[in-house]
């Protein structure tokens, strides 16, 4: 019963979205206030309907309603409750429902908090948002309906893919989707602005919080996914340059560029048409990502739904929205003239450089991702593009970005002096070089990766701190600290995010450069030395789990005879899904992770064991958390909220003619 209501609610939401797409748009065109006013209630109703149908699907999963096809395929009565709930989006159909729910949520948020927008712009934004909703709801209803029933319900389900039964992975899709789908808001704003033919500082202010929200969630989502790969896949890799990872990384890069260029629009009324283009492309990469993940044209470790028919439909959605928006852009972009004038050395130029590097690095990832497809279609050469290529082609851009970032961040607007900007940064530079030299001497005869990571990491973190210190002005320590406390949260957000980039740089470089790996056969009771640690395989036993059987090893790590950690790596077999998984055991630390994996039993009664010492591993994700924290701080800034709440009459905005 609830299921039918949920099904019905989705169809109703589709109808509401159609109305929301057409009526306000026509109203904005003919200047009818009552028609435009349809947008807000429609957005709210669409969201409530989809929230209800999502709840209905969740109920079906929680109560293990095996008359539903989706529940049969993805659930099982013995599955823990947490994974019954997260199982709702652990599959293609359910995740699409989550996707349209978040899409509607963003539309509703724009309706609720968009009171300050000019009526016509708001009507158009909500109409474009509804158009995206129509496309995806049609996709959901016609190709991926989660509410299909079984004619003969089985007694039990087929269980969720065991790899997905994990907290890290269970919670990363919602974050990722808020990121992907949040970029639809920037897209809607860009298209609405193009239709209006007007982009001004106010537009830059309106679009930035949405982008910031999307980017922050995308950061958390990507970090969770990478953290999951680190502890779940059994050897501690954290990034594979897999098509699906790239699918989330490309919108992230473009959104980061968009965040920065929108500042230039807001403060200086320059880079307008470029910012519009970025807003369109950011969502375009989200759509391409959905296509890559769900069509199966590119093989990946993460993809869960491989269905060519769906792929064609998603490709059509991407083509229509990108084609339409870019055509509109081509027709209107020239009318968006820049106003601000700035010198060669200025904050504006630095932000242009930031955009150049982020956009080109994204393009490189894009070309690398689709190259196997393109090469095979055009020349018939069947080839692979993997991590060695991406590491080589992508890293230089990030290094350049890290070098210019701290300087660019303190350059004044309009016109600056490079010497003056560098002077206060001398301390940070000196520190960075000193630490890098120290690292270089401590590690003899190894790669340059760790010293370079140290150089850039310290440079970024010290640069961010120096900036906050400078912003606190002159005077004694007390007044400086007081002023620091009173700095706008956006300034803190900027410093924290930029420092986060440095922390991640250091984590990646140190872990890749200094990792220690040990592979061997150990008999129960045997001890061996890895790095500074003495590892003992105490015991291996069989342990039953709720919906799996585990082979669990008990391993001890000692340093100078003192017990540091007792770890229990496992190998699990999920009988229902007939799938084994490796559960590495990790002792997390600030300076290093101990990462133990138990393998196959050997003929001599021993076990294959792998022992890793991964230095500074957690810094990678700590940096990502800092980036997201910075985004949140900036989002909570009074000025952002004022930008969202300040009533600006449409007359105050100057047409960009």
């Amino acid at each position: 019963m609830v299921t039918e209501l949920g099904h019905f609610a989705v169809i109703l939401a589709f109808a509401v979205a159609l109305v929301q797409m057409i009526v306000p748009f026509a109203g904005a065109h003919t200047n009818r206030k009552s028609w435009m006013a349809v947008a807000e209630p429609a957005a709210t109703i669409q969201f409530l309907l989809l929230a209800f149908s999502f709840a209905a699907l969740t109920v079906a999963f929680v109560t293990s309603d095996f008359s539903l096809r989706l529940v049969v395929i993805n659930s099982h009565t013995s599955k823990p409750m947490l994974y019954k709930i997260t199982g709702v989006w652990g599959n293609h159909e359910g995740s699409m429902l989550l996707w349209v729910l978040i899409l509607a949520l963003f539309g509703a948020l724009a309706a609720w908090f968009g009171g300050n927008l000019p009526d016509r712009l708001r009507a158009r934004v909500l109409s474009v948002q509804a158009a995206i909703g129509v496309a995806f709801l049609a996709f959901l209803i016609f190709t991926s309906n989660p509410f299909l029933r079984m004619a003969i319900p089985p007694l039990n389900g087929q269980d969720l893919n065991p790899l997905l039964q994990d907290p890290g992975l269970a919670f990363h899709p919602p974050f990722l989707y808020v990121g992907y789908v949040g970029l639809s808001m920037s897209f809607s704003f860009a298209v609405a602005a193009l239709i209006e033919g007007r982009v001004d500082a106010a537009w830059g202010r309106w679009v930035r919080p949405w982008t910031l929200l999307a980017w922050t969630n995308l950061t958390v989502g990507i970090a969770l996914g990478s953290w999951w790969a680190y502890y779940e896949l059994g050897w501690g890799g954290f990034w594979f340059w897999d098509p699906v990872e790239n699918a989330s990384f490309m919108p992230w890069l473009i959104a980061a560029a968009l965040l920065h260029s929108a500042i230039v629009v807001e403060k200086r009324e320059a880079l307008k048409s470029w910012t519009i283009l970025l807003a369109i492309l950011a969502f375009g990469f989200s759509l391409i990502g959905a296509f890559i993940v769900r069509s199966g044209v590119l093989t990946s470790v993460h993809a869960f739904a491989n269905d060519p028919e769906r792929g064609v439909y998603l490709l059509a959605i991407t083509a229509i929205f990108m084609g339409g928006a870019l055509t509109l852009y081509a027709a209107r972009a020239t009318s968006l003239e820049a106003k601000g004038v700035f010198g060669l050395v200025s904050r504006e130029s630095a932000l242009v450089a930031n955009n150049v590097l982020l956009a080109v690095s994204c393009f490189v990832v894009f070309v690398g991702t689709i190259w196997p497809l393109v090469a095979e279609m055009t020349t018939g050469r069947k080839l692979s593009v993997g991590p060695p290529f991406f590491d080589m082609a992508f890293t230089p851009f990030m290094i350049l970005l890290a070098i210019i970032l701290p300087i660019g961040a303190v350059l004044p607007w309009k016109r600056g002096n490079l010497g003056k900007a560098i002077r206060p940064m001398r301390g940070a530079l000196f520190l960075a070089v000193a630490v890098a030299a120290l690292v270089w001497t401590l590690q003899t005869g190894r790669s340059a990766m760790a010293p370079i990571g140290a150089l850039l990491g310290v440079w970024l973190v010290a640069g961010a701190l120096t900036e906050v210190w400078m912003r606190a002005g002159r005077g004694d320590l007390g007044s400086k600290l007081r002023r620091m406390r009173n700095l706008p949260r956006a300034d803190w957000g900027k410093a924290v995010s930029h420092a986060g980039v440095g922390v991640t740089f250091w984590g990646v470089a140190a872990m890749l450069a200094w990792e220690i790996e040990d592979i061997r056969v150990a008999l129960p009771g045997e001890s061996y030395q890895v790095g500074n640690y003495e590892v003992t395989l105490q015991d291996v036993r069989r342990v039953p789990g709720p919906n799996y059987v585990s082979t669990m090893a008990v391993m001890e790590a000692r340093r100078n005879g003192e017990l540091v950690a007792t770890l229990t790596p496992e190998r699990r077999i999920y009988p229902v899904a007939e799938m084994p998984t490796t559960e590495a055991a990790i002792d997390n630390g600030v300076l290093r992770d101990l990462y133990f994996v138990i393998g196959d039993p050997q003929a001599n009664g021993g076990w294959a064991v792998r022992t890793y010492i991964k230095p500074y591993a957690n810094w990678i994700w700590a940096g990502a958390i800092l980036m997201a924290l910075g985004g949140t701080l900036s989002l909570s800034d009074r000025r952002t909220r004022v930008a969202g709440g300040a009533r600006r009459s449409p007359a105050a905005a100057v047409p960009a003619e």
Partner: protein
Amino acid sequence: MIRILLLAVMLATPLWAVQPDEVLDDPVLEERARELSTGLRCLVCRNESIDESNAPLARDLRLLVRERLVAGDTDEEVLDFLVDRYGEYVLLNPRADGVNLILWLAGPVSLLAAVVIGAAYVRRRAKAAPTGAAALTDDEQARLDKLLRD
């Protein structure tokens, strides 16, 4: 080795990446083998190198790489050998020849183009006269001149 394989099959568990019995005694050769392995695709897997993969084929390839190295092949010869057998699909690092040059040059060329366009834009903004809201009308200019004179 066959006994290990049998045991593994009996327990219905996969083999996983680099087994202890594969490791070469010579640490230098082993290092080279690992380095090569990370750049070779496991052909039956979704998107994994043979260094990471659990598949039996990946194990065979790992052993093959080590066999060639022990036989005295250079890294390049090992790669050529594998490409001859399995096609260039096996290489995770595509070779920079033929159409692949487009892939390899995409980064540098687009960076160059972007820098040129960006620099041109910045130069234009540096030279542009203030327009729109920032520009002054004749009346305002006259008032400003007057104020400045006074």
